[in-house]
């Protein structure tokens, strides 16, 4: 089960804008293994969503992706349109943040589900319908048969996201990319969706990529985590390692800024000072350097490479000392 399903090498995503190029993703290397849940965290503009949109061939028109992405050994980056229609929704599927707008309000839920099987599997409408009823039941939607002839606006947000997940899994893809799947949902519904994803992963062995800014979501579901900053991977580790023994100052900042219930209400919420960098400019040094409490002269001049710390733990940082309060005082 450790064989890698998706291999990303040197992925770069660049957008051409009126003010010159914007570098959304830079030098990204990573693998997704079969059946694992890979979390990707970062703040808005860290390139986490664009990475996966590029892989799905869904970049905006002014976006270009370079590098190499192999799915099961086969190059899939920048495929022509015709090949993409055979790949997307069949071998890899993607669901999006806002289930309220991600479904077509003009078509019945059934139509939006059956069309996937009709196109990819050549099924008749009737066959596809029967399969879709089963799929809706597997995401715990009651009265599935009647539900198919209803429209998205007759569903709640959580139910729509279940429908999106059921639709994505109709073709039993090897990879399911979830871009902020629970961000637009209530906390209780969020928990249900995460439980559902976990259940489906175990049942179908689908590898799941979970893109989110919510560390809580990652902690619940992910096996491995990648931390993105300014279009770069800054740390990568098993989920327990990351939460217990993170080695990047940015990861520390992210973890410290999670609100905690065990602290007095008067305690100020920790924040990372400053703002994310302008992606139109590419500094010579570490992009996090201006906001980093541990930065040195070296950080200003040289981009830290992503190096292995052993045991599947990688980070991109020059700082060698201890992190945390004691590190900051040292």
């Amino acid at each position, binding site marked *: 089960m450790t064989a890698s399903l998706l291999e990303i090498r040197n992925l770069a995503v660049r957008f051409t804008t009126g003010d010159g190029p914007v570098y959304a993703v830079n030098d990204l290397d990573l693998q997704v293994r079969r059946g694992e849940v890979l979390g990707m965290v970062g703040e808005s503009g860290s390139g986490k969503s664009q990475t996966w949109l590029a892989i799905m061939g*869904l970049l905006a028109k002014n976006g270009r992706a370079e590098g190499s992405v192999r799915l099961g050994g086969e190059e899939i980056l920048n495929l022509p349109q015709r090949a993409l229609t055979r790949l997307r929704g069949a071998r890899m599927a993607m669901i999006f943040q806002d289930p309220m707008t991600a479904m*077509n*309000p*003009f*078509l019945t839920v059934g139509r939006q589900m059956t069309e996937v099987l009709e196109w990819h599997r050549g099924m008749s409408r009737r066959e596809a319908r029967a399969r879709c009823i089963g799929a809706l039941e597997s995401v715990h939607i009651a009265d599935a048969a009647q539900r198919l002839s209803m429209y998205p606006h007759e569903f709640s947000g959580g139910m729509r996201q279940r429908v999106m997940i059921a639709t994505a899994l109709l073709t039993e893809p090897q990879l399911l990319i979830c871009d902020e799947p629970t961000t637009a949902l209530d906390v209780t519904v969020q928990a249900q969706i995460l439980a559902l994803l976990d259940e489906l992963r175990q049942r179908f062995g689908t590898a799941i990529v979970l893109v989110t800014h919510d560390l809580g979501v990652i902690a619940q579901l992910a096996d491995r985590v990648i931390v993105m900053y300014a279009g770069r991977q800054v740390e990568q580790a098993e989920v327990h390692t990351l939460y217990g023994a993170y080695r990047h100052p940015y990861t520390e900042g992210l973890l410290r800024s999670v609100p905690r219930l065990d602290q007095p209400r008067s305690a100020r919420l920790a924040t990372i000072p400053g703002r994310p960098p302008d992606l139109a400019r590419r500094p010579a040094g570490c992009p996090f350097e201006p906001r980093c409490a541990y930065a040195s002269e070296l950080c200003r001049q040289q981009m830290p490479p992503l190096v292995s710390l052993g045991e599947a733990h990688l980070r991109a940082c020059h700082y060698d000392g201890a992190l945390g309060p004691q590190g900051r005082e040292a």
Partner: protein
Amino acid sequence: MIRFLLRRLAWAIPTLWVIVTLSFFMLRAAPGGPFTEARRLPPQVMANLERMYHLNEPVWEQYERYLGNILRGDFGPSYVYRSTTVNQLIAQGLPVDLTIGALALALALLIGMPLGMLAALRQNTAWDYVSMAGAMVGISVPTFVVAPLLILLLAVKAHWLPAGGWSHGRPAHLVLPVAVLTLPLIAYVARLMRGSMVEVLNSPYIRTARAKGLPERTVLLRHALKPALMPLISFLGPAAVNTLTGSIIVEEIFGLPGIGRFFVDGALNRDYTLVMGVTILYAMLIIAFNLLADVLYGVLDPRVRQR
């Protein structure tokens, strides 16, 4: 859906009543009357005329009589086109406008919609820029410039088409008026279609459809077309009435016997019944086409249907 239709039709009755009443009294309030001409008529003749058309009665009684007549579908006699009823004038003029208007409307949709869709699909390419610049010209150049130009080029110089006249609707006589009427409409439809298509193609549900691997043809025809048609429908409701009832300028330039000129002549001559008749006809058409637009909304959009 049927209940919605009935409710809307029921609403049309008070709306029409308000329009009839307002225009009736506004016309009477205007100075002069149908028989006040430059040369004054002898008082006895005037009195006879007024008695014949019941103009000597109090306005209130005239109003009651008029309401009673139009409820029976009788718009009364024209005061200026002597010995002709308003019903006859409308029956004579309306088919001319309907023929030209319907052709212009059909052409506008047939040409404008694909033009706009292509511009949206090839956004920011030469095709997009050229067709949208053309549309801008089509909208900006007024009819009274385009019509004489076309007459000059195609009729006077080239002798390909007649310069005007109706000739019982012979096709050659239709070409120029329809062309003049449809050009700005094509431009409007194309621009509207491009705008809404661009917006729909950027919407999250289109991204979902693509993420599902659907071929671009399906994404476009099944997922994008219906939502992109919605703004067009709201535009077409009133625009269709405008086009179908003809343009006074087009009628005047091409010498067509449409109802537009009756409207103008009637207003200038205080031909009360004629103006009222045409006004009511326009009002009914506007109500009917807005209703049609609402029904189409319901047919296309399930969220509207349920309300």
